[in-house]
């Protein structure tokens, strides 16, 4: 079953003009988020996944950043072509975002309820009382106990998990079509992580919101997403369904990521296998090598890899990969 697309990103290119030169943070990235789907974007720190998210929201700090090419179509409307005022009506309303730091993402001088109500009143023509009622209702939906009481409290009176729930409440207060979750659980305890992920999935199924989940945690991806985009050095290098990607990763980088996850079987078994790390480091985005950006760290690299950037090709049904050797490595 393939639902219709809600968010189509095509040829997105975001660069930063810095003292060290031109930094190509997002280079020709395309993907499609379908209605009601959870799409994960994975990659290590600095691979451009957060900048991709900010680019979708048109909130790349400028200067020095700028979106130089591409289109971001939300239900067919190109968000990169509309005015800033129109974009403000999209943010928090049609498309919302939650961040990594629940501890600092809420304004310390406003109550949680006020902050939710403010977003509601920003996008909906409702009375203060109705907005407040909506705030309490949202806190109840994100499973915060005694929501009417909690709404009157300040962020410092809530725990980290509670604050992230409150952030989710703000993000979903206007029933957005798309929710971008940028490392939503990274800063939380493992037990709280699981709770927040469960909550997000439940809310996502209740409301039918499509979720773009940005993470570096493949465990989170396996539990939540239907499809995965793998990014490396600002480019999309692989895209597949979760099952396909975990069963048969085609890019050597994805393969390396999989092997660097500890497995219970391997750890408890008689043969203690050493975890495989990927050698080397992500190249500086301001100074990328000419060919495939992963070539320097790749065991399969040869002259072809240094010569040119491999194109993204559909090597199996619905499984796209950008590697010169994808065909031979599987």
């Amino acid at each position: 079953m393939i639902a219709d697309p809600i968010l189509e990103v095509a040829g997105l290119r975001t660069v930063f003009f810095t003292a060290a030169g031109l930094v190509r943070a997002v280079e020709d990235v395309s993907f499609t988020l379908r209605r009601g789907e959870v799409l994960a974007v994975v990659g290590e720190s600095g691979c451009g996944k957060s900048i991709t998210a900010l680019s979708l929201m048109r909130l790349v700090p400028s200067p020095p950043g700028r979106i130089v090419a591409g289109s971001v179509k939300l239900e067919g409307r190109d968000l990169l072509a509309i005015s800033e005022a129109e974009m403000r009506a999209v943010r928090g309303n049609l498309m919302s975002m939650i961040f990594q730091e629940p501890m600092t993402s809420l304004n310390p001088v406003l109550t949680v309820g006020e902050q939710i109500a403010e977003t509601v009143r920003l996008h909906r023509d409702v009375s203060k009382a109705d907005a407040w009622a909506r705030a309490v209702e949202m806190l109840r939906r994100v499973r915060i106990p005694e929501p009417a009481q909690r709404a009157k409290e300040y962020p410092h009176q809530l725990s980290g998990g509670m604050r992230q729930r409150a952030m989710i409440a703000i993000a979903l207060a206007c029933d957005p079509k798309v929710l971008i979750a940028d490392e939503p659980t990274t800063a939380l305890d493992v037990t709280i992580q699981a709770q927040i992920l469960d909550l997000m999935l439940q809310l996502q199924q209740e409301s039918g919101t499509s979720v773009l989940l940005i993470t570096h945690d493949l465990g989170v991806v396996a539990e939540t997403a239907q499809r995965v985009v793998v990014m490396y050095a600002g480019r999309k290098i692989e895209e597949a369904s979760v099952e396909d990607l975990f069963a048969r990763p085609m890019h050597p980088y994805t393969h390396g990521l999989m092997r660097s996850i500890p497995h219970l079987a391997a750890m408890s078994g008689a043969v203690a296998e050493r975890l495989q790390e990927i050698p080397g480091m992500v190249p500086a985005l301001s100074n990328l090598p000419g060919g495939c950006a992963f070539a320097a760290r790749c065991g399969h690299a040869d002259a072809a890899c240094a010569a040119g950037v491999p194109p993204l090709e559909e090597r199996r049904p619905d499984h796209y990969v950008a590697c010169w050797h994808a065909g031979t490595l599987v």
Partner: protein
Amino acid sequence: MPRSIRASGWGHSMAETYGRELRRAGADANSPVRRLVLLLRRYPLGAAGAFILTVFVLAAIFADAITWLDPLRTNAPEKLMVPGGKHWFGSDVMGRDIYSRIVFGARISLAVSLGATTLGSVLGVAVGLASGYLGGTFDLCVQRVMDVLQALPLLVLALVTSAALGPSLTNTVIAIAIPMIPASARVIRSNTLALREAAFIEAAQVQGMSEWRIAIRHILPNTVAPLIVLATAQLGSAILTEASLSFLGLGIPEPAPSWGRMLSESAAEYMRTAPWLVIFPGAAISLMVFGTNLLGDALRDILDPRQRG
């Protein structure tokens, strides 16, 4: 990328610091009265400052009720009376009651200092917020103007402005307010710069808020604590500057009872023969400035823990 800059852990709200202070004082009290008592006990000097200022404020408000002689009415037969009896603080060369003039002088002193500090803070906040939030060339130009203002001592700038505008209550307020702008503008600007990178500001942008709304509703309230600390400190210098301007004949014109003018009228001639003409206004000025300084120090400790020495 911007993520690392943002993780600076901003979030000292007033409620937060207030609560922490209370806990440190061993409080589990919920009643506001009990909270106040605990705060007063933890900061005895601040409490003393607050007490002094309260006395002056009450005196200024109820000046008519606590005096029995017109501060402006001259009375030649009773000139240069020694303190005691009918004239608690004595009388001046024109027979005016010093006690009444001190009490009514508190009105002038408070009106000018509060007015100047408020005006200076409001303008400073506007300048600082715009400067910090807009940044770029605007920020650069505004900060150079602030540099120029700050290069001149408070009194000198107030003196020049006051001389240019002419002596009157309003002009004195303006003359003292203008040199106060740079300090609050600087404080607000630096706070705004730090807050602009805060995660909750990015969150506000993500929710579709306009720059205006973010600046006014989300950044400004977070700068209130340092602003209160600064304003209290400025209150003291405003009192002193008003007294100095009046002493030099540029502040509040006669016959209004200004402490500074009372000093200047009597300092040279009557210092030896009638020292109460000098002692009481001088003491009033010192006491009020002392009170604001004590209160200001306590407020700084309570609201701005980062500056604690």
